[in-house]
């Protein structure tokens, strides 16, 4: 997969800001998946990549995750019960990096973990462990702009906030498709089209849509509108069935995304 590699100030090679366009093989749409950190996560991440995932978000669990619905919340509870504190999550990230050396990996977590660990220390240590960037679900754009991370925007975001988020976002902009928490929904949110249009008007960054995407049908519809998609809760559920089930499910998403007719 063609990616843009660069050396940063510390001499580390990393994928520049997660920007990833898979031009030749897959028609240009990115498929990102979310997995909760845990003992089997590195293998699951590898299975997802084999199934066609371009990017893996790794949840670092928090006890009180405001942005998450029941599936990810319960996954976080289990992970914490299994001892997945910050250090264990960093180790999981490092092992995942070994298994999928060319795949962007993005830890996703809440401000509380960075507050406890030290904001700069956390940012440095995730990168040292192999992270490409970072998502902090409850740190809105404009706060701590020095913390390089992927910004989220929502249907409720004003155009001005879309602009600020895009300016500060590290490589791509995460479009939350719906007004709500993570979790599967019956239909793709009708709010996505409008949000994509408003975001396009203020930035050239890749726009990846996430929240509420679970079926291949959702995936195709969302990928039609945006530059890529993020699938979270449904991936977490299928991952419980093991790597083979996960690989097959991701493959079904990949096929749906690749079936998108590119806009001319």
């Amino acid at each position: 997969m063609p990616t843009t590699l660069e050396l940063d100030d510390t001499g580390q090679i990393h994928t520049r800001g997660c920007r990833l366009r898979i031009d030749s093989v897959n028609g240009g749409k990115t498929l990102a998946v979310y997995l909760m950190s845990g003992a089997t996560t590195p293998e699951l991440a590898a299975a997802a990549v084999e199934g066609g995932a371009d990017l893996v978000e790794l949840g670092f669990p928090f006890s009180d995750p405001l942005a998450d619905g029941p599936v990810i919340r319960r996954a976080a509870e289990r992970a914490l019960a299994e001892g997945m504190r910050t250090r264990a999550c960093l180790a999981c990230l490092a092992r995942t990096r070994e298994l999928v050396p060319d795949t962007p990996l993005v830890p996703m977590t809440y401000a509380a973990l960075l507050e406890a660990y030290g904001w700069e220390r956390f940012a440095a240590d995730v990168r040292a462990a192999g992270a490409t960037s970072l998502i902090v679900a409850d740190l809105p754009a404009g706060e701590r702009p020095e913390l390089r991370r992927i910004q989220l925007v929502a249907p409720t975001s004003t155009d001005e906030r879309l602009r600020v988020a895009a300016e500060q976002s590290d490589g791509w902009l995460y479009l939350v498709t719906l007004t709500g928490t993570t979790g599967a929904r019956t239909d793709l949110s009708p709010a996505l089209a409008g949000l994509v249009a408003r975001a396009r008007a203020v930035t050239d960054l890749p726009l990846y849509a996430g929240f509420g995407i679970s079926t291949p049908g959702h995936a195709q519809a969302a990928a039609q509108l945006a530059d890529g998609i993020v699938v979270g809760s449904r991936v977490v559920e299928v991952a419980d069935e093991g790597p083979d089930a996960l690989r097959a499910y991701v493959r079904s998403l990949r096929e749906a995304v690749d079936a998108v007719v590119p806009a001319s």
Partner: protein
Amino acid sequence: MTSTGLYGTYGGRYVPETLVPALDELEAGWRNAQADGSFRAELDALGRTFAGRPTPLTRAERFAPGQRLYLKREDLLHTGAHKLNNALGQAVLARRLGKRRIVAETGAGQHGVATATVCARFGFECVIYMGEEDMRRQRPNVERMELLGAEVRPVGFGTRTLKEATSEAIRDWITNVETTHYLIGSCVGPAPYPEIVRELQSVIGREARAQFEEAEGRLPEIVVACVGGGSNAIGIFAGFVDEPAVRLLGVEAADAASLSTGRAAVLHGARSSVLADEDGQIADAHSISAGLDYPGVGPEHAWLRDTGRAEYVRATDQEALAAFRDLTRLEGIIPALEPAHALARARDLEEDLILVCLSGRGDKDLAEVLSH
């Protein structure tokens, strides 16, 4: 962090992006209301004609015989606790913002009852989140909320108390943000909530100060209040914070003592002093009183502690129960278990002229107390 909503390094707005426009709208609406004389006039009128303000100041002669100890009687406010001061103010604000649905969390149920009360009065749809454990130990309040027309949604995971109820209320708000006002019950949460709740509860402190001066010809030496999220304390402290000679003392439940035993952490949208571990994971709080059973506290209290303006101590379940019984038997006033914590520490004090905020009455606690 942004410059607004900070108390030293505490406070802020740690929320998903979806809520930022709602918080901006709330802040603008609040500033607008503060500048509008008719808002203050409406709240004053509601306080007088609906809520029962001003509440009395009662000298507790037998409970603390060696001291001149006064009780600010928020237990006599309509619905039985100070919570209505905040619920009324936020209801008027919600109406001004054009919201038609209210969501809230509740611990002991007093804030839930106050919210259900204002929703009945103002005609709002009302959804209250309450932990299943709290529903069990504060059953009368659940019944009252439902009678008032609120939908009480049980929260059955985690500690099944106020912490999870608050998280679920916030998740509901995220999902329904365009139609819904989140009527938070204490001086916690993302900015501007801590400031709004303090300002709405500051009527306690203003009244108490004037009443105390009338009764004693001078200010108290010390003001004592229980601290869960911290709203009755911040409200009564507000009347005295600018008088350095007046000590301010907050009393937490011993096993929910965010200020005495916690650390800086982020919970429910704010950085504050929280019972959290070294990874920032929130710990369980425990208290016999549902309203103090919360691992966080308002960010302004964390700042008052750090600057030395206020001190925070603890009282155990047993001490609170003893103070509950003593106030009941010696003064004929049944306090809620929450302010019983303040009473427990108040009678230990060296000071003579003491003002205690009696933040609520104890009807809701009869079953719990009688079972001990």
